[in-house]
Each structure stands twice: as structure tokens, then as C-alpha cells.
């Protein structure tokens, strides 16, 4: 048994058999050489709280977030903190953000928030910032440097000059497949901030970047894409142990580009098709990714979930807590140096629901 597998067993023991077997866990573990340094955090994302009118909100999406919050509160051992990965709201209104913030307030942990495009494009994040604070920032925790980016910015012309109203701008960006949308980016100003933020950080420090969009280019048509991904990746190059965790895609994705391990998180609201399910466009889903099971819409929460993350080797170990499916675990395989699914990476072990077409 590899040292890695041994640590995994230790972790499960610590987590308690009940929690592991009954909760759809999607926790992130960062693992270090010294197991005492290991810690975990939980990641909830893409709740898309959607206002109907008056006090009515879309019930389905409400339930997804309520369940994730309740289950996160039941975790044993307790995560050190929780991250909410963006798209708390559907159309960025005060009603939606307030309703979502109220649900998030039930979390019994320090919570960090990431900006999503559905939170941003009504008032360019003004009300979100009132509730949750700055749109990009960094913090250190037990030897890891964490950076939160607002990666859903776009060209100024699109943001400021193209649309007759803020409401229309929001609607145009909210449609995932809307050809009037615009590619996401971190932008020059924020990249300069990131460069300065990373300057004093020791290069052996594990980095964990939280962004809403993937800081890689997968499929532009649905903005599974960040326009200045390469420029951001270049800033992260000096750090051999860099991890990027992103939302937006509502599906399991993972990848490794040079020094950077990429992990996506699930939505609590609804799953999205993999880009290859759209027959009319080329796409670049990472070949490493073993796809999540195809969704069964008759189970309202199927193919949604949240994650439990451990940070021990300086690489993210991602436990996908899936509501109507067997949980998935994607972690560094020391033999290959790549993030891999601990059960399904071998093609011979993959199952029919993982085939998307």
C-alpha cells in the first residue's frame, strides 16, 4: 500500500465511518509531509438562487443549497472553513443575494466567497460586495497561501457600453449558451494585483487559487473558459504545488497543466452537460477527466452536490459529495504525479453512466 493510500485510510478513520458512508462528501484535503499539518475545508458552489416574485423562489435550487449547508454543518472532523464558489444568485438581484446569504449564514464555519457572473453583471458586484466583502483577496492558512480571484470580468466595451440597461446586461450574461455573451477574464489590473500578492510568498508554499471560471480554456461557447488563462498560469508557474479550484461548470472536471492541478466543483442547483454533448462545436475537456454519471432528472438533486477538500501533500484531494450517486474522490496519484479518480481512473473500471454523448 502506498504512503498516499495509507494517509487516505487515516483520513477516513478520522472522519468517522458514519460521515463517510452516509453523507455525500465533497471535501477538499490538502496533504502535507507532516500529517499533523493536514486540514480540510468544504466547498459549496453554484446555487443559482432564483427569485420568482414576492417571497417566492425556485424551490428546487433553494433545496440544493439548504442541503449542502446542513450537511457541511454535520461534517466530522469539522472543516477549517467553507468556500462558496460563486453564482449564489441567478440574476444578481438583492432579493436573490439576500435569500442566498441568509441560507449561507447558517454555516457554522468561517466562509469565504467567490464572485460568479450571475452575482456580478446586474450591478457589477456592488451589492454582493456589501454582503461578502472584496471581490479578490488572499489569505494564509496552516502554511498554504489561498487566493480568491474575480475571474468573471470581461471586455470593458461589453460591460459598460453595449447594453441599454443593467438588467439586460445581466440577462445576456446569464444565458450560458447565449452568443451575445462575452468571454470571462481576470483582467490586467487584477493580474497585476496577483503578481504583487505572490511576490513575497515563498515558492515552496502550496498555492490554492479559487476562481469561478476555469483558469484554462475548455469550451468558449459556454464560457468554460478564461480569456487570459495563460497569463494567469504564467504568474503561478514559480510555485510547484499550485491548485486551482473553480465552479461555473456544474460538473466534475480535473486536469494538470505543468505545475497546476485543476479541480472543478459541483453545483448545488443543477448539472450541466459536458461540452462534447453539443454536437455542433469542438471542445477541449481535459483528457484526464473521468466524467460524472449522466444525470437522472427524475431525481431532483441528482448530479448536484458539494465537496470536502483535504490539503495534505500540498495537492488538493477532492471528495465529491454527490446526492444521488456514489461519491467520487479525485486526488494526487504520487505514481503518475497527476490528479486521478481513486476508483474510476482505469478505463476498465469505468461504468456506462460515465459515457456522455
Amino acid at each position, binding site marked *: 500500500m502506498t504512503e498516499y493510500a495509507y494517509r487516505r485510510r487515516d483520513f477516513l478513520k478520522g472522519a468517522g465511518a458514519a460521515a463517510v458512508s452516509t453523507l455525500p462528501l465533497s471535501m477538499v484535503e490538502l496533504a502535507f509531509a507532516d500529517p499533523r499539518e493536514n486540514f480540510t475545508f468544504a466547498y459549496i458552489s453554484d446555487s443559482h438562487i432564483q427569485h420568482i416574485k414576492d417571497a417566492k423562489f425556485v*424551490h428546487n435550487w433553494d433545496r440544493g443549497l439548504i442541503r449542502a449547508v446542513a450537511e457541511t454543518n454535520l461534517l466530522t472532523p469539522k472543516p477549517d472553513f467553507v468556500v462558496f464558489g460563486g453564482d449564489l444568485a441567478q440574476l444578481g438581484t438583492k432579493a436573490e443575494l439576500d435569500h442566498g446569504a441568509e441560507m449561507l449564514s447558517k454555516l457554522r464555519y468561517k466562509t469565504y466567497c467567490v464572485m460568479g457572473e450571475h452575482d456580478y453583471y446586474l450591478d457589477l458586484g456592488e451589492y454582493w460586495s456589501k454582503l461578502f466583502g472584496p471581490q479578490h483577496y488572499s489569505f494564509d492558512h496552516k502554511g498554504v497561501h489561498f487566493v480568491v480571484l474575480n475571474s468573471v470580468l470581461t471586455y470593458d466595451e461589453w460591460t459598460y457600453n453595449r447594453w441599454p440597461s443593467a438588467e439586460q446586461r445581466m440577462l445576456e450574461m446569464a444565458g450560458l449558451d447565449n452568443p451575445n455573451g462575452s468571454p470571462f477574464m481576470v483582467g490586467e489590473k487584477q493580474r497585476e494585483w496577483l503578481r504583487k500578492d505572490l511576490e513575497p510568498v515563498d515558492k515552496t508554499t502550496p498555492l490554492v487559487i479559487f476562481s469561478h471560471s476555469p483558469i484554462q480554456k475548455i469550451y468558449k461557447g459556454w464560457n468554460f473558459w478564461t480569456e487570459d488563462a495563460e497569463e494567469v498560469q504564467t504568474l503561478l508557474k514559480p510555485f510547484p504545488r499550485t491548485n486551482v479550484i473553480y465552479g461555473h461548470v456544474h460538473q466534475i472536471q480535473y486536469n494538470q497543466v505543468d505545475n497546476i492541478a485543476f479541480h472543478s466543483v459541483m453545483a448545488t442547483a443543477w448539472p450541466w452537460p459536458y461540452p462534447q454533448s*453539443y454536437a*455542433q462545436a469542438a471542445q477541449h475537456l481535459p483528457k484526464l477527466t473521468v466524467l460524472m454519471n449522466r444525470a437522472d432528472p427524475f431525481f431532483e438533486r441528482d448530479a448536484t452536490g458539494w465537496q470536502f477538500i483535504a490539503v495534505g501533500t500540498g495537492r488538493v484531494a477532492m471528495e465529491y459529495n454527490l446526492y444521488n450517486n456514489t461519491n467520487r474522490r479525485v486526488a494526487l496519484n504520487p505514481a503518475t504525479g497527476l490528479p486521478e479518480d481513486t476508483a474510476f481512473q482505469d478505463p476498465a473500471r469505468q461504468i456506462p453512466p460515465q459515457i456522455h454523448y
Partner: protein
Amino acid sequence: MSKKLLVATCAAAAVVAVVGGLGARADEFTKQDLERWEKEYMTVVQKGRELWTSPKLGTNGVACAQCHPNAANTHPETYPKFQKQLGRVATLREMINWCLQQPLQGKPLALDDPQMVAIEAYVAYERRGVPMAPGKH
């Protein structure tokens, strides 16, 4: 096309045939015919796309495109097929109605409702080029 319009079109065609002194030949059509038919189809596809992205199709503001961007993951080429959740073979239109009633909290459409035809036309259009695979899972 409405019945009235169809009658008018047929009458016009008959007039053209008589005036032109040609017998209408059922098995012959022109490039212009093909272009017109394509245009008619694309008009309905466009209507389907509008319905697909409309928050007003159901009652809760949820649109089809929220879960199915570009109508992906609808697999029109696989219908009719055994739908395990229903325990029987079902058609795409039945599944469209299921979505209208559940995630969209709306009312089902008659299977020949022009809106249903438009939605089906759009879904099929986004899947063009994919081989038929009835019954596939």
C-alpha cells in the same frame, strides 16, 4: 402553416399552373422551393429557440436552456426509447412535457401544439448530423 393560409397557397399555385399553361408536377420542385422550405423550417426552429430560452414557458421562471444549453443532453436521436423512470417506451415530446411540468412547474402541451413542434424542431436542429439511434441509452 394555418389551414386558411394553406388553402390560399394551393389556390395561388393552381392559378400559376393554369396561367403558365403547365400541369403541376407532384414530383418536381425547384431550388427556390427548397430554399423556401428551409426558411419555413428555420422560422420554426427560431421560434423553438425563443421558447427554449423563455422564462415564461413554465410558471417559475426556469427556462429549458438553464439545464440544456444548446439543447445538449436531450438526445432526440435516441427516441422513442425505454424510459426507465416511466417503465415504458416514451417519445421525446412526452419527455419535453415532463420537463415542462416538473422543473418548469408548468402545464403540458398538446403533442401537436405548434409550440411543441417548435421545441422539437429546435432540439433536433441542434443535434443535426448525429446518426439516428432509437432506443439508445
